[in-house]
């Protein structure tokens, strides 16, 4: 590929800028963004480096098909070493930034080093410059976008950090345009540590697939397949927040810091309410997306009039709403807007706030942390104040919570670690894993911490025929479409891992490969082949996905991770979910051990350590990685 496939390197310490091609061999092995990015990160970082030091790098990776008419392929994966977990991190984001980058002639941007003073990067096709950021440093994300747009016009796509990233809050997000976030893992803090405020991109070039007509026709077929899915209408109609109702009804809607799984007032904060209340003004798509799950909502009257939000998503509603005991849609919009402007991850922000609320109510939060605001469940004004305090790292509670819930709870102690809903240092996303064992396993082995974007095995619920068929395809029997069974969970999780990795690499949104699987290995292989001019079979592509997952695990192994880290938050393993009627809802250590044993065995990893064996790595073509891990005494 000549066009749209280069790597743009920017070394901020020296100002050096250079461009490399992506070798075909890297596509053969790792398929695209997330995979090639993981390989670059593995090769470029030494183990043990400080994620917030100049040795860390940030890789912005557009999907291999991003910027084209393949449906729902607007995704960018951002890869770095996370200050929250100390492991490899990838965060996927939509919008149109990635498409612009591809049309400017690059698939990857690697930012290295650390600028001496605040800067931003301007990419306009071949012209790449490092600019002084004195006019935007200190500004919030929206003001930053406004300022850049006034100066350079509307044709540039913007990724920036807000005050939270500048202040290196470990729950700071990267914000793409006004509302889209590569939220998790504190990558916003990594960008802040580099004194890098923004990267703006204008793509005036073009992309040419290797086999244009074939590629085009396959893209049209895929578009039709995605639109034919029963979930397509739901995503458009009520967005991700449309699932608040059904998830609540299933007693799996986390509220009050995961103390409960059902909210009596859940209907007040659902996507249906958002739509019918008049708050929803428009539906938004990422580049080439035919689902349009994103919302644009605005409050016209009342005490919060003038508030607008690019959501809220299901996760935001659960985290900043139900999780904090706030059942007021307008208040959630206000909190969402604050997070967008300050550049904070809404999942983690809600998580740390509700942890503080529980800690306060249990009487173990010291007075020095509650001087300016008392964190009480249900107090929306407290939520707003704490969001600001975190972003600005205000002395006391704000500075404490900006460290993320793991460090905050370790500092407070007194048992508060038990209700810190995190593992590996990352706050869990808003999924109840105590009554769904594929989810429990997927969350425990997720290299970035407990959340749904490593593998989302919703098919195990068997709610629709498509889901049951998927489980049958994976396990050979429809009966395994049952989330309360322990058997076959390893198979289900590994299959989803493989597919998700490929989905990310090519730039597809996971909504096209979740549950009904309209986009799948069988149609991704030919379209990738037509794009690159390299033959992929579905089997080869699946192996790419596997290789990516194993490589990511190896990165963490090199950092000292092992089986001991594959855990769930304490609460999920030690406190039963009370709201679920009938049956025990808890992932005990015994159950998790069984799931992990099966999973490691299936992968061909060492069962006692959870570390891939040399043979497994050799078989996957990762001998260079195996050699290094051997020399470090890890294998």
């Amino acid at each position, binding site marked *: 590929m000549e066009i749209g496939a280069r790597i743009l390197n920017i070394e901020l310490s020296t100002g050096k800028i250079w461009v490399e091609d992506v070798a075909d061999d890297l596509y053969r092995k790792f398929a695209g963004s997330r995979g090639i990015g993981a390989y670059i990160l593995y090769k470029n970082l030494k183990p043990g480096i400080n994620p917030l030091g100049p040795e860390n790098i940030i890789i912005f990776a557009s999907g291999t098909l991003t*910027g*084209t*008419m393949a*449906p729902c392929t607007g995704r960018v994966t951002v890869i770095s070493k996370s200050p929250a977990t100390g492991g490899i991190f990838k965060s996927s984001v939509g919008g*149109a930034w990635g*498409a*612009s980058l591809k*049309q400017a002639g690059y698939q990857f941007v690697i930012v290295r080093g650390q600028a001496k003073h605040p800067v931003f990067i301007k990419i306009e096709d071949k012209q790449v410059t490092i600019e002084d950021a004195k006019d935007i440093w200190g500004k919030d994300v*929206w003001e930053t*976008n*406004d300022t850049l747009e006034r100066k350079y016009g*509307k044709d540039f796509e913007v990724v920036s950090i807000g005050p939270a990233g500048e202040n290196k809050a470990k729950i700071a997000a990267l914000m793409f*345009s*006004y*509302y889209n976030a590569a939220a998790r893992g504190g990558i916003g803090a990594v960008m802040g540590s580099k004194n890098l405020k923004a990267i703006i991109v204008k*793509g*005036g*070039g*073009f*992309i*040419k*697939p290797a086999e*244009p007509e074939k590629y*085009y026709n396959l893209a*049209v077929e895929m*578009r039709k397949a995605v*639109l034919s899915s029963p979930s397509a209408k739901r995503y*458009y109609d009520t967005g991700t927040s449309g699932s608040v109702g059904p998830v609540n009804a299933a007693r799996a809607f986390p509220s009050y810091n995961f103390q409960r799984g059902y909210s009596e007032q859940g209907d007040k904060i659902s996507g249906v309410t958002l739509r019918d209340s008049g708050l929803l*003004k*428009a*539906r*938004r*798509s*990422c*580049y*080439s*997306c*035919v689902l*349009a799950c994103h919302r*644009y909502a*605005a409050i016209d009257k009342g005490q919060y009039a003038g508030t*607008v939000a*690019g959501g809220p998503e299901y996760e935001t509603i659960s985290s900043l709403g139900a999780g904090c005991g706030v059942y007021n849609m307008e208040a959630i919009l206000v909190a969402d807007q604050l997070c967008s402007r300050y550049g904070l991850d809404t999942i983690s922000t809600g998580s740390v706030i509700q942890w503080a609320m529980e800690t306060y109510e249990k009487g173990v939060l010291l007075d020095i942390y509650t001087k300016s605001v008392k964190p009480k469940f249900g107090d929306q004004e407290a939520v707003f104040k704490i969001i600001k305090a975190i972003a600005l790292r205000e002395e006391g509670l704000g500075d404490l919570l900006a460290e993320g819930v793991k460090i905050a709870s370790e500092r407070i102690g007194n048992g508060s670690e038990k209700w810190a809903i995190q593992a590996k240092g990352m706050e869990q996303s808003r999924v109840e894993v105590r009554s769904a064992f594929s989810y429990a396993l997927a969350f425990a082995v997720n290299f970035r911490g407990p959340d749904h974007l490593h593998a989302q095995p919703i098919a195990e619920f068997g709610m629709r025929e498509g889901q049951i068929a998927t489980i049958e395809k994976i396990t050979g029997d429809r009966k395994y479409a049952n989330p309360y069974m322990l058997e076959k969970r390893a198979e289900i999780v590994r299959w989803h891992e493989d597919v998700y990795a490929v989905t990310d690499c090519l730039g597809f949104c996971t909504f096209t490969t979740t549950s009904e699987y309209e986009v799948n290995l069988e149609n991704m292989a030919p379209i990738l082949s037509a794009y690159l001019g390299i033959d992929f079979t579905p089997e080869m592509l699946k192996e790419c996905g596997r290789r990516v997952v194993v490589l990511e695990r190896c990165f963490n192994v090199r950092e000292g991770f092992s089986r001991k880290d594959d855990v769930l938050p304490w609460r999920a393993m030690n406190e039963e979910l009370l709201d679920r009627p009938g049956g025990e809802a808890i992932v005990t250590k015994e159950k998790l051990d069984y799931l992990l044993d099966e999973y490691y065995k299936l992968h061909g990893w060492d069962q006692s350590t959870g570390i891939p064996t040399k043979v497994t790595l050799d078989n996957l073509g990762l001998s260079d990685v195996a050699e290094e891990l051997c020399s470090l005494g890890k294998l």
Partner: protein
Amino acid sequence: MYIDVDYLKCTGCQMCEAVCSFKNTGLIGKSLSRIIIHKDEKKGVFIPTLCRQCSEPKCIQACPTNAIFKEKETGIIKINKEECIGCRQCIDSCPFGAIGFDSEYPFKCEICGGDPECVKSCFIGALKLKKNTDVFTESHKKIDYESLVKEIRQE
């Protein structure tokens, strides 16, 4: 014949840009597309911008070499490259900002010969093909996109 636009439906996916540039040039890129989505991300407004095949075309009036003409049968406005001198006066005259330039010649939507790819690819139906006999009769005044966004958001 012209392509009608429903601002309120458009979700800003830009699929039309990708398919348009490909059908017309064999390459994929916004800068080659005959249709451009004017995006106001902050306000969640997306305005598809393309030639409306005006009944009283400003571009034809502006062209000094008569290189632009309106097909009688279909009403489609086309550019004859052999007559075009690349002066860009048509670009400045267009009330919609719907004419692009490819380093030599201006280019604009010619409705893919009557079977427009953008309309087929618009999943939400924000673009609609009007028949041969239909003529775009709305204002031919220069569009001020900022005002239009405010109007849509009722500000």
